[in-house]
Structures are given as C-alpha cells and as structure tokens.
C-alpha cells in the first residue's frame, strides 16, 4: 500500500510537471528555447517511466524508460537543433495567434479537459482522474502548438510533444501499454522523424523556406 500511494504521488507530480512544460513550450519566443523545453519534456517522461517501473515492479518499463531518454530526451532534440543550425532558420518563433492569446486558449483547454474527465472520476478505479485530465490537456496543447505555428520545425515539435503526451498518458493512466505496442509506436515515431528530416531538405531545396505561409504563396503563383 505504501508503494501504491508513492506511485500515485509520483504520477501526480509528473503530471503537474508535464502540464507546466506544455505551457512553457507554448510560451517560448526563441526556437532554441523551444527545443530545450522539448528535451526537458522527454527527460521528465523518461524519469516518470523509470519511477513507475521501480514502484510497480515492471521489468519491461525499464527498456521503455531507456528508449524514451535516448530518443526523446537526446536524439530528436539534437537532430532538430542540428537542422536549425544548418538551415539558418530564423531564430524567432512565428505564430498565427499571438502568445498571450494562445496561453489563454491553453488555459481554456485545461478547464475543458477536467470537465471531459468528470465521468471517469465516478469510476471506482484508484487512478486519479486528474492524471487523465492533465494528459488530455497536454495532448490538446500540443495540437494548439501544431496549429498556430507557421514554421515547419515548430509544427514538428508540436507533433512530437503530442507523442510525448500520449506516452505520458499510457504511463500515468495505465502504468504502461504492453511492450509490443510501446515498441511499435516508438518505431513509428522514429520513422516519422526521419521523414520529417527528409521533408525539411525537400522544402528547403524547392521553396528555400520552411515557412508554410511562404510555401502556400509560392504554390499559388
């Protein structure tokens, strides 16, 4: 029972951290800072997976934790950083909705998510519905980021932060999905990341820009 309550505490703290990082990701002006927070999100996710693995004694989750740390905490942020440096992308994040407004929308999303999760509260399950509500909110905030950003790279960070939020949901709400699924999803994310890289190169050679507004205009002409 001691372990059980510790597990709950850990997940709650991690959920709060994940939500904070989502807001932090959304609030950044500079591309480099976005990547820092993205890496931080990966590390928090890996740490949560590790703690859940220890507390609920699931050997499989150790592998998952290591994979997450390597892939999301290090490899992907590094690859994105390299692309930004190589392609001389503007350092400023450009948005279609200005930052204060998007923060307000994100706030609305959090409230809505708690409302959506109300039916789950009624379940006798001991997993807190807070975790699920926060996980829903982080998924939607990632989407908000994907929708409101104009640069292909920030959209990708949005996409990958949604993936992080999904993995967090799997860990927080269900203490990890079965291994085949986790591995399969991780594999898909890796392939997706490679394809993203390919696309950046194509966009750069065809449009000389990674700004989707510029691309849209070039097609129309």
């Amino acid at each position, binding site marked *: 029972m001691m372990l059980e309550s510790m597990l709950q505490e850990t997940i709650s703290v991690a959920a709060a951290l994940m939500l904070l990082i989502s807001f932090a990701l959304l609030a950044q002006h500079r591309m480099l800072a976005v990547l820092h927070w993205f890496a931080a999100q990966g590390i928090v996710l890996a740490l949560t997976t590790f703690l859940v693995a220890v507390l609920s004694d699931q050997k499989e989750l150790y592998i998952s934790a290591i994979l997450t740390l390597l892939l999301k905490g290090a490899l992907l942020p590094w690859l994105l950083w390299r692309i930004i440096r190589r392609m001389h992308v503007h350092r400023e994040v450009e948005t279609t909705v200005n930052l204060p407004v998007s923060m307000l929308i994100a706030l609305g999303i959090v409230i809505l998510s708690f409302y959506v999760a109300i*039916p789950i509260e009624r379940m006798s399950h001991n997993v807190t519905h807070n975790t699920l509500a926060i996980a829903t909110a982080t998924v939607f905030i990632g989407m908000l980021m994907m929708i409101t950003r104009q640069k292909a790279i920030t959209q990708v960070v949005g*996409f990958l932060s949604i993936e992080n939020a999904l993995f967090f949901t799997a860990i927080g709400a269900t203490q990890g999905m*079965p291994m085949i*699924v986790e591995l*399969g999803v991780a594999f898909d994310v890796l392939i*997706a990341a490679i394809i993203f890289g390919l696309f950046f190169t194509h966009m750069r050679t065809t449009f000389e820009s990674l700004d989707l507004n510029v691309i849209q205009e070039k097609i129309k002409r």
Partner: protein
Amino acid sequence: MNWFMFMLLSPLIGGIILAFVRHKKWASTINISFSGLTFVGSLGLALKVLEQGSYEALEGLFFLDSYNVIIVTLTAFVALTTAIFSGPYMRFEWRHRKLPERRLRLYHTMYQLFIFGMLLGFTTNNIGVMWIALELATLATVLLVSLYRTPGSIAAAWKYFMLAGMGIALAFFGTILIFFTSSSVLGHGNEALTWTLLFKHATELEPSVMMMAFAFLMVGYGTKIGLVPMHAWLPDAHAEGPTPVSAVLSGLLLNLALYILVRFKMLVDMATGTDKAGHIMIAFGILSLLVAALSLHNQRDIKRMFSFSSIEHMGLITVAFGIGTPLAIFAGLIHMTVHSLVKSGIFFTVGHAAQAMGSQNMDQIRGLIRHHPGIGWGLLIGTAAIAGFPPFGVFTSEFLLFSATLNSYPWLIFLLLTGLLIAFVGLFRFVQPMVFAEPPDHAVIIKANMLPVYIHFGLALFLGLYIPKFLADWYQQAATLISAASGGGV
C-alpha cells in the same frame, strides 16, 4: 508455411527486394509478381475461412472472420491490379517527368510496404497493432504522395502528414483509454488489447470511458477515413501523388480506417448498450456526403474532383454502418467492395486521360471518346457506375441502403437523396465535355493499359447483377456479426 503467413510476408519480402532492384522493367515485373503472390495467399486464406467460418493464426495474434476476410481479399486484389496498371504508367511518368531511377525504387518499395501495412492492420487481433499498421501505411503513402517532389506534391504531403499525424494521435489516445478500462477486466497485458477477448468481455467494460474513447477514435480514425471536417488532406494528397497511389488511397487506405472504426463501434455498442456511437457516425457520414457533393462542383483538377466523390462515398458507408441494422451493414459492405473496385478503376482511367492530354486540369481534357475511345468509354462507364446507374453494384448497395434507412430513420432519406443527386449532377457536368467535346491539338497518343479497368468495372457490373451465394453468405454473416453487437436484431 500456411496461407496466412504466405500472404502477410509476401509484400514485406517484396518491398525489401525491390529496394535493391535498379532495372526498371524488372522492378515492375517483380512488383506485379509479389502482388500476385499476395493475392494467391489471400485466396487460399479465404477458402480456409470459407471452410472453417473463422481462423486464428499464431496463437490468436491474428484473426480472420467473415467481416475482414472479404476486405483482405479485396485489398489483395486491388493491390494486384494496381501493380499491373502502374508498370507501364510509371514507365511513362519516368520518361516524361524525368523521375530518377532512385525515385522509382522508392516507389516500388513503399508500394509493397503500404500493402504490408494494410494487410497487417486488417488481420491483427491487437488494437494497438491496428494503430501501428495504419500509421505504417500512412507513412508509406506520405512518401508516395511526395514522389514527384514538385512544390505542390511536397506541400500536399506535408499537409497529409501533419493532419494524419494529429488524427492518428487522437486515435491512439482513444486506444489508451480503452486499455485503461480493459486492463482492470483482462489484466495488465496484451490480453487487454486483444480484440476477440475485448469483444467477449465488452459488457464488463466501463461505459463512460468507452464512450469518451469512441469520441477520440471517431475523430482520429475519421481523419483517415476522410470524413468532413477532417478531410482537408485528402483531395490534395490524391491530386498530387502518382495515379496508382490515388487509386490505392481511395480504394484501400480509407477502407482500413473505416474497418478499424467499425470494430471499435462494435465494442462501444456492447459496453454502453445504446446506439450513441451509431448516431455520431451517421452525423459525420451525412455531413461528409453533403459537403463533398457540394465541393465536387468547385473543382478544376480531375483527380481532386474524384477524390471528393470518394469522401462522399465514404460518408455513405459510414452512415450505413452507423444505422447498424443487418440490412444497412450488408449494404455498407457491398458498397465498400464496389466503391473500391469502381473508384480505383476510375483513377486508372483518369491517369491515362491526364497522360494523353498532358494535364490534370479538367478544362484541358476534352474529347476523349474521339481521341482515345478506350479511355473515353472507360471514363463514361466508370462515372455511370460510381453515380449509381442501375446495372452496376453501386446501385444495388445504394438501393439496399435506402431500404434500410427507410426502416430505421425515414427522415434521413431526404438528406441522402439530396447529397447523391448533387454529386450526380456534378460528376456528369464535368465528365460530359471531357468525353464528348472536340479533342485539343496538343493531345498525344499513348499506349493505355485498360485491362485492369475493364476487370474492375466488369466485377462491379457482375456484383450488381448477381452476388454469388458464398459471397452473399459472407456479407450476411458479417452483417449479423456487426449488428449483433449493437443489438439491432439477429
């Protein structure tokens, strides 16, 4: 080696081999051979299911029942004919668009991997693997859509990638929610994601969580079905990719997403004991039908126009499954089959028409019937078939769907008819001048490969006149299976 492994592994091995084949003519021959092997495997498998009723492979990791075996055979068949079509088509494109040989290898490899993803998604028993397979098929098609590397195709592929990624993320969230409730019933392991076990224990699952999960699954997989308002990726991806890819996108990939959604609907219906899920599907389906029928009138690109017709028909099938009575589902399954056949046949024809006229713009395509009688007749017959003219299978399924609608939701019939009528007018408004007017001077004579087209239309015609008994039995069984879940009579 059994039929199942034979069918599933052929495209995977084919894809790996094709990654190394540089010779163009051989590559397309190998592509056809492996698609042929896949089809032979699926036929063997279908016979086995016909004998046994259902089939499980590898200790229940994969399963086939009357519902998915129809679609698996259909997928393998369309994959084969598309491979036959794409041989000469891609060689033409290679010569005229100056595709590098490397790109052609990418095309063949991704084509086979796409088929692998499709078959994996249809046959797996694990709802997590279903998701992975759909994602795999999506990633393969993203690369296929961007094959020409023109500005338009890169932008279209990016849009497709982003929207599909977002949708599929929501679908995964729904899957996690299902695991969240099922792990307390079936234990914390793969069993809690195994569809057959979930189906057995569906009534023990928590209704509120299942309903919430369905909302996410509906929007998530709905994006991949191409339902309005999540359809924005679909016309662009169809228009900018090579034509064989448009054919398999419309004919196959949309079916996979719909197949998965219907599997979940069965679970949700049993868990909640209401038809709420069905109502949501009907709403999305009707909206897609109407919006697509109207948008069809606004198009200038021929492939975009027919891709809106795909959205329209996917909407119609979604309505059929949403209604959920055995008759409606029977109609939906036939419609799915015939739509795949006819729509891929139309895309083959359109591809040749665009090659002959040197443009996909409908204003540039004129007088096909005089210039290229084969293609002209193909387009005319195909359009008649997809618009639901009597002897073709689309008419049969739409007729059955109307009877089913009249039984359950009579007031819907008005909306359905309006949508179909608007689409009908739109199709013929565009197709008529393309087929009959004076051909332009710049048109070139091409060697059109119309055999796959005639096979597809012939089958659609056959299914409209007569459905063989074993096939009717399958559809019947599948309809009973699916409708039993929603309690809509057995």
